Every structure is written in C-alpha cells, then in structure tokens.
C-alpha cells in the first residue's frame, strides 16, 4: 500500500467519522518498502488539491520522513520546483507500508497491516 493511500483512509467505525482525531490513522510498528516508480508530474498536480496536507504532514513525520512545510505548495510552485516534486513523489508513490498497524486516534482501534494489505473489517458490535 502506497503512503498516498493513508491520506484517503479514516477509521471505519461509524462513531469515529465525525471526529477529527480519526484521520489520519497513525502507523505503528511500521515496516516500509520502496518501489521504483517513474515520476508523473501530471498525477501530482491532480492530487495536490485532493490531499489533506495537514494529515500528510502528520503521516510523513510519523514515518520518519523529513518535515513537510506547513503550507502545501501551489500548483505553479510544484511544477517549477523539481525537488519538491521528487520528494512528494518519493513519499506518496514510491514508499509502501508493508507490515504494522494503523491506529485510530479517536477510538484506539488497531487495523492490522499484513503484506501491504490493511484489514478494515469490524466486529459486529462496532458496525
């Protein structure tokens, strides 16, 4: 699972949907792997307005990546600055979460990640 995915995922428990603490999920005991993926500037430009930048900063810090700037780059800045583009690409598209857990900051539910596949199924008392 690419790190990008983490920016799309919240806690699946219905009661947590309204809480801002349920997003992003926090990786725990994370094992990372890296793929070699060709940079696609068009993809990053499309993605930029859809990313929750604050959540991405949290995720990036928690996974031990260098701190992202407080404000997201504008589309023009992203297109002009090859380093930002490459760094973002490497974090979002090349880094994979392989093993570990994703923890909800609101209810504390832990979703196990095995071989890059997190499991979001819930027991009956939580659906």
């Amino acid at each position: 699972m690419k790190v990008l995915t983490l920016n799309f995922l919240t806690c699946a428990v219905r009661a947590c949907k309204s809480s801002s603490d349920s997003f992003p999920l926090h990786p725990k005991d994370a094992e990372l792997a890296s793929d070699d993926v060709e940079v696609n500037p068009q993809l990053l430009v499309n993605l930029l307005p859809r990313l929750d930048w604050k959540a991405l900063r949290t995720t990036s810090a928690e996974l031990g990546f260098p701190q992202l700037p407080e404000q997201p780059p504008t589309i023009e800045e992203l297109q002009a600055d090859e380093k930002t583009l490459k760094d973002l690409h490497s974090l979002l598209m090349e880094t994979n979460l392989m093993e570990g857990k994703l923890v909800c900051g609101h209810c504390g539910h832990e979703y196990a990640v095995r071989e890059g596949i997190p499991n979001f199924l819930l027991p009956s008392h939580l659906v």
Partner: protein
Amino acid sequence: MAEKLDYLIRFSQSHETFRLPEIQALAVIEGVDLEVVSYSLESPFCIVRLTSEDAARKLIRRSILAMAIHELWGHGPDLSAVHAQVKFNTPHLWAQYLEVSFKFTIDSYQGSRSAQEKVDIINSFAYLGFAGPIKMRGADQEFILFEDWIFNSTPLGIPDPKHFYFGRYLGTGARDLPKKLDLKKRRYISTTSMDAELALVTANLALAAPGKIMYDPFCGTGSFPIACAQFGAVAFGSDIDGRSIRGDEKKKTLRGNFEQYGLVGCLGGVFTADLTNTPIRKAALRYDGDGVTGRVFDGIVCDPPYGVREGLRVLGVRDPEKCPWVITKGKEMYKQADFIPPRKPYGFLAMLDDILQFSAQTLVDNGRVSFWMPTANDEDQEMPVPAHPYLETLSVCTQVFNKWSRRLITYRRIPDAEVDPEAMKAYEANKAVGKTADELNPFRKAYFEGFQTPPTPATPPN
C-alpha cells in the same frame, strides 16, 4: 470541393451497445471534438466528423471495440456512387500519394469476392493515378474499400453489398490489449473475474488515464484495477474478502497480477474493507463545494456481487437478538489475528444505492462511476436503472445472455451547483429494507426461479 472530410470507424461487430459510449468517452479523454454522422447497431461502419487526421488517430488509439479509423473518401450504395464522390471530393488529395508505396485492399463484411472480382474492383480506381510501388507489407499508405453485405448474402443469391465505403487508413485501436490481459494467461483469477475485453471497455468508459485516481470497491483478483492501470491511472481496490486479494500469498496474488503486466507502479493500494463500513474518507454532500476538496477519486469502476455466484454480504449479524453470543464473542475476540468478523446478507438494490451515494461523496466533479448490474431479459421482470440526484446517467450498455443480461451503467458526478435540492430530499425519503437473501435481491430470486413470468389466471375457453 468539400472543406472537411469525414472519417470512417470500422468497429468489430460485437458488444454493439458498448461501442458508441466507448468512442464518446475516448473523445472526452483525448479532448477530441466528435460529431457522429451515422451509426447503427447493425453495422460495423460508423461515420464521424472530426477536426483533423491527428484527432482521428487519437480518438481511436485506446479503443477496445473499434478496429481502425480511416479518412473517408467516398461512400454509397454502389461502386459508381463511390467513384463519383471520390472524384468530386478528393482530387486535391491525390497528388501527395502519386509516388509513395501503397497497398489496396477490400474488406468485405459478411461477404466475399473472388480474386478476379477483387482485381476488377481495384482496377476501377485506376483514375487515382497512383504510380508508386505496391507493397503488401509496410506500405506508406493503405487504401481500403469496405463492403457492407446483407447477412447470408451468398445463400440468398444477393450479388452485391448494400453499401460501399472507400478510405485511407489512419490508425488502429487497442485490440491487442485484451490479448495482453487475457484471463487465460493471467497468473491469478477467480470464478467471477471480469474478462479482459470488457474490463478495458469499463476503464475507458470511466475515463481511466495517466494522472488519474481510480477505485474498485469490489476488486476481487483485480480485473478492473489492472485495466485502469493499463491505461496509466493509479488504481486502488478493496474487497470484503481479503483472501481474494492475498491469493496464495506468493505469486498468485492481486499484486502478482500487476507484476505480471509490469504495472506495479500504478497499483495505489488494496485493502480489506466493506463498502457499507468503508474507511475511505468521504465529503458530506453539499450544494456549494469547489468540485475537488474532500473528494479523492476521478473514477469508480466495479462489478458488485449479484448474490448468485458470489454471496452478497456486509459486516454485521442478521438477527442480533437471536444470537447475542456472536456479538459478545466478537467483543472478546476481535483483537486476535485470526478473528473473522460475522457478515449478514444485504440487499442488492441497497448495495447499488450505496455505490451511488459513495460515488457522489468521493468523485471529483465530472468524475465517472461505471458499474455492472444484472437484469432479466423479460421486460416484466427488468430491473430499473438506479438513479442519484448528484449523478447523471450517461450510458447503459447491455451484454445479453440466455435468460438474463448484464448492464454496464455509467454516470457523471455533476457539480454541486447543478444539483436539485428537492430531488435530493425526495431521494432520501425512499430506501429499501429486507432480511433474507431472496427478499433483498429480486434478481437472485428471479434467477433461481428460472425467470418464469408470473402465472396469469387461466381464461375459460369460450
């Protein structure tokens, strides 16, 4: 002399109802201004008006159901009409082809010609004056005379086709892709994997393209995500059954399929999840959004379980009062690695509503959702096309089987400002409920009853 030439698309004569929606979707993807001049489900020939030769090649390059596109020089019900049009419309084009190597062929749809007849027909075009070398392979230019014969012409003794088209070849579609992604050669598939050709058509209809984000909430072994990735999109998938994603955890896995085709870079992520309890972040539906914020996908493609071959279940317990111990046990055990959460049957129509609601909440403006649903062939038992106030129905394509059909329905997420709040209120007031698999799923019920029409009261003989 005509200013602008028309172009001729030669389709394959299969999946007829999918062909035009596919071409129209490709026109959107490639930014081509498309005007359809003539098209019929019964014919593989379609005339379109485009701005340039380059636009024609672009329009067709990703098409799964179109074989090729040609610059149309003339057409008519007999050869003399074709000659008249060619002589009237195209003399200004002839000069550039006088010296180049060329090839001249006849493509007879539902008919055939003897070698001598072919030579005679080709020679009737001698006035074009092409003097370059004839090359059957690798010619610079290819000219084709298409013949549209009536079905079964030979036994019926019909001597001539009903229509002729003459054109210069420009480019082919992507008819090789279904072979590349052929299920027979794929490492890992299951009983309900979508065949490569229709998965690719689905990806086209949902506008999968480089730089886009696509999602399949019922991905199984990954047929749709693979098709989307083949067109350059980053594909995400989830399934309530994690086993279908993991496979044998060695080579036969969803990721293994991406590796087989060299598409791993386009595999965004897959996870085990239930659409009714999805972990995907969703934006609340509103009437004044900016079209992007809070929404993540460009396209959603799926073939949800119909509840016939693949059970339709979601998380939960069917009757919580009857079996409270299941819930209690879940409370104690759910943190263990081998815990399997209980599931209950769910309504197919409710699931379709959930897909549409989810799409409305997660698609960016003008993003598309394409999904498959079954229906009975009998008009009385036909299932209605589901609707949602935030989605515009673009096309309904049908693949017919013996007693039932499946339809590929494509919608466009309309911008918030165009949504009618009254329609949304009326929509929310209608929701279906039920408990057993049959109650919940009219298609499943009809399927197992053999699609019989309900018995009508016998009328007494006069």
